[in-house]
């Protein structure tokens, strides 16, 4: 557990960086053979691509890491642990499953989009075309992850058009606006 907390506090740094960039504060790291090989934070606004979540960013970096070291990316994918501050959404859970990541550790739940049990259970459901199911450990540094989200939703997301913006919300988790 202590090991999980250590890795998660590193992932939290990337969530904080996302917040500083004005993105939804979600951060993650991939751990391979006890070392951090890729990190990611949300970059939706920057790329104008709503699918540019922390996990997708980090998966791309794993691929770069593999090609630099001439490692087979499939072998590496299948030996990874993902630490992510918020439960992966349905999309990211689908992505993780397709590349075959066996273990995902996350902080707080994602009530609106969560793909590891909150909305759908992409992690465990029978989906033969999507690759093997993966294990999930939740609740690691959840409170810290929630605090960051609260900070974000206290301010406005400048990239959401005026008419789409909602009144400021303090009760956050059921109002996760755009993209976790």
């Amino acid at each position: 557990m202590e090991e999980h907390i250590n890795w998660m506090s590193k992932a939290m740094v990337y969530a904080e960086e996302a917040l500083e960039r004005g993105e939804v504060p979600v951060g993650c790291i991939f751990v391979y053979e006890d070392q951090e090989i890729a990190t990611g934070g949300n970059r939706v606004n920057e790329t104008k691509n709503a699918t540019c979540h922390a996990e997708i960013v980090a998966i791309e970096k794993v691929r770069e890491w593999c090609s630099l070291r001439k490692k087979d990316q499939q072998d590496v994918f299948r030996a990874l642990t993902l630490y992510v501050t918020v439960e992966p959404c349905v999309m990211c859970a689908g992505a993780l499953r397709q590349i075959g990541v066996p273990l995902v550790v996350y902080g707080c739940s994602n009530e609106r989009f969560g793909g590891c049990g909150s909305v759908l259970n992409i992690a465990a459901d029978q989906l033969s075309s999507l690759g093997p199911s993966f294990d999930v450990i939740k609740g690691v540094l959840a409170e810290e992850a929630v605090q960051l989200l609260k900070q974000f939703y206290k301010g406005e997301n400048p990239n959401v058009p005026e008419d789409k913006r909602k009144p400021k919300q303090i009760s956050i988790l059921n109002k996760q606006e755009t993209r976790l």
Partner: protein
Amino acid sequence: MPVLADIYTQPVQLADFYVSNITDRKFTAALVKHLNITAPLGSFQHLKRVRGDKSKGHRDFVMIPRDHDDSVRESEQINIMMTSLLKSSDIPSTTLSKPYLVKVPICCPATRAQYEESSFYWPVTFHEDKRIAQMLSGTFFSKEEIQRIKNYLLEAESLGKKAAEKGQKHYGIVVVDPDTNTIIAKGHDMCRGSNPLHHAVMVGLDLVARSQGGGMWCLEEKSNVCELTSCESSNGQMASEKSGPYLCTGYDIFLNMEPCPMCSMALVHSRVNRVFYSTPHVDGGLGSKYKVHMQAGLNHHFDVFRWTGEVLSDIRAHH
């Protein structure tokens, strides 16, 4: 054919309810008033409380759901119910006959077909959703619209075919701005290239982002495996100008194959307008395995239509 939430397509589900005859009709109004307090219908508000039966000349009155607690014997339960129902009212207990059980619909009907089926069991209220009714009746799209949809689906199919020729999966995508009837992006699956996440939808969405001055993937590198068209072709200045809507707001998506759960949620995140696809997939996220676009709690919902006309795609349905 629209891919609607289950509430529009499921058969009528039934529950047991206690019902009594009203022996003295002049008490009907008083009974309705009183029982709305002592035996409120709760989640069964769609049931009318009184059912008239002209042929038999009596009225039935719906009361309370059957308690499935087996520890209480049926007759005992009835007795308790009858004494409590008319308590503190001026209505004589003889006004209601010994209750009996009937089946009543559990849900408020969402479509006319469900309404007709429900009414067979017990009279219910029904407010027709005109939009849903149109979708179900097949008059939602005009002939011209159907032809346009078909053409874009065929375009997606031919992109899929190109992908298959290059050893990729037979999946294509066309992104269209329906207001101007122009194609914003065309793409196809590249997941057997270097990135297993390069599904047709993910590729197409990144092409749209790129047309708006964004984008996250270096898709050019693999131009030999992908047929790219972002909107530069239709509007030369767009790529540099960072214009366009917020994400894919207002855009229609055409696919020859139902998207996987990952891609389905990607479409939700991208706030697309509508999705049309021709072939269902057993693990698909927009109708087959899940209805991601209908999940309660999402901040964005969109309509999904599955083509049910003649076969448009060479790919076999994945059932």
